[in-house]
């Protein structure tokens, strides 16, 4: 049951994302898995995210919600809703005293059971979404120009149920 990692970062210089609540990356999944994705039937996702939100522009009540990923329809985990829900999303106080003006967020599911998607094969984009807990709509405060929200996310994809 091999585990492969994928690192995505909205602060990278070559990022063209303009909306932190819904950023999309093109991924060549065959290269990521070194073609092992054709040897397994199932894929479990876990992740670890660290983000920063600029001071004063984000309200706590409007910054709670969920994080999900959107894949092409046949790769998502559920038909109930379009994206695959990954976890609840919450704010944290800065771990560094005197630096609370930059509110970070940190959510980790690497030590939990994770969530399933269909095994990604080929090359197609993945979109990471942050949605409000009030009405399930995009966290519009997370646009880069106003309430700056940058994050870095580390995905762990566990392939299992080997095709014999």
């Amino acid at each position, binding site marked *: 049951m*091999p*585990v*492969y*990692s994928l*690192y995505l*970062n909205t*602060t*990278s*210089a070559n990022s063209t994302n303009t909306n932190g609540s819904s950023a999309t990356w093109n991924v060549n999944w065959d290269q*990521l*898995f*070194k073609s092992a994705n054709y040897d397994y039937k199932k894929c479990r996702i*876990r992740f*670890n*995210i*660290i983000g*920063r939100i600029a001071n004063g522009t984000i309200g706590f009540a409007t910054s709670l919600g969920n994080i999900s990923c959107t894949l092409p329809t046949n790769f998502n985990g559920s038909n109930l809703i379009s994206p695959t829900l990954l976890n609840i999303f919450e704010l944290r106080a*800065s*771990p*560094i*005293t*005197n*630096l609370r*003006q*930059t509110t*970070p967020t*940190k959510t*980790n599911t*690497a*030590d939990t059971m*994770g969530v399933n998607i269909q095994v990604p094969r080929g090359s197609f984009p993945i979109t990471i979404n942050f949605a409000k807990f009030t009405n399930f709509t995009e966290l519009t405060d997370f646009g880069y120009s106003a309430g700056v929200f*940058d994050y*870095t996310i*580390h995905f*762990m994809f*566990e392939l299992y149920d080997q095709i014999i």
Partner: protein
Amino acid sequence: MPVFSLWLSTQITSPASSYVVPIDKTNLANVAWRVDFDNLFKGKQNEYKFCRVRYNLIGETFTASTPASTDWTNYVGYLSVSLPSTFQADVTNGTILGLTYPMDSPITGTSVHCMFNTTMSDIGVDIITPTGVQQMNVAMMSWITNAPISTMQNYSLLLAFELYN
């Protein structure tokens, strides 16, 4: 599924073992080590195909009495190990093992902030079981620049390798 541990410390001035030798410590955020994996795994490396890697990291970061406003973000990033391409999935950035970020020091009054990150209780990340004597780079990369964290101080890193099929 045996688990073997490897301890790396940038403060070692002379090798404690001929099996683990620092090659280049000029950049503490990208240190090269020479590791004899055959001796580390005591022959078990030939019995198992996959190797799950987890780590425990304690590091010293900025030392100013009052952190600068950019200090928190400057130390956010990821920890990766780079081995010859046959032993890892991603040959571009090395194998990314986890995210890193600084914390307050648990020692009151030192004004020395630290970095403590662990994935020991996480699922971990796989590499192909390394064999032979290899150069392994341990890098801590900035999420802002995607380059080694320029102001990284000394650290102590315990890597745990779980072999399995």
